[in-house]
């Protein structure tokens, strides 16, 4: 069975601090995709990244970076120099033809 675990239910950090959101997944598939989505208070789902299981290169996009480690089945997300606008619920997800979401981490960035 496929499963995504986001152990951190809620995190609060002060603005400008770095913060890492953890994600651990389980799958028997050899080919799969990993995703991160952001859900701000307004409720929409914002796509952040998709990573193929064969591509373990870390990725950086501005203040966002992702660390994919197949050996530990983890796909962690780091926000550098956090800003208040980063406050949201962040979902890690595993997918192929359908997406399995983790339960989300609610991130509070305090001014």
């Amino acid at each position, binding site marked *: 069975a496929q499963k995504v675990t986001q152990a951190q239910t809620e995190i609060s950090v002060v603005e400008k601090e770095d913060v890492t959101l953890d994600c651990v997944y389980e799958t028997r598939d050899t080919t799969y995709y990993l995703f991160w989505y952001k*859900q701000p208070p307004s409720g929409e789902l914002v796509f952040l990244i998709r990573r193929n299981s064969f591509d373990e290169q870390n990725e950086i996009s501005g203040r966002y970076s992702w660390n994919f480690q197949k050996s530990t089945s983890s796909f962690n997300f780091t926000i550098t120099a956090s800003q208040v606008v980063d406050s949201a619920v962040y979902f890690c997800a595993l997918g192929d033809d359908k*997406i399995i979401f983790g339960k*989300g981490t609610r991130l509070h960035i305090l001014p």
Partner: protein
Amino acid sequence: GEEVAQTPKHLVRGEGQKAKLYCAPIKGHSYVFWYQQVLKNEFKFLISFQNENVFDETGMPKERFSAKCLPNSPCSLEIQATKLEDSAVYFCASSQSLGRGPQPQHFGDGTRLSIL
């Protein structure tokens, strides 16, 4: 269109009434997915379509829930005889193709269904 369009944004129904939600996928996208997000943030996959054909319905409740994607019409998700537990945000997503793997699923803004 360039976005997944879901209507209505909010829907309020009394318990036992019918609820119908609509989704227009991005033009050119062959796959449509429905997800249910309940209050504690948990997402549940309901059903997916490849064009007008059901692709995967393993998450669909056996009773009361039905869905369609007909040519030249928005896709729809219908709930008969609604219950309080059906209160949730229902998200629709579309993908261009599965091919070697899913394109990033583009999500609509969701329909918030409130059952009173």
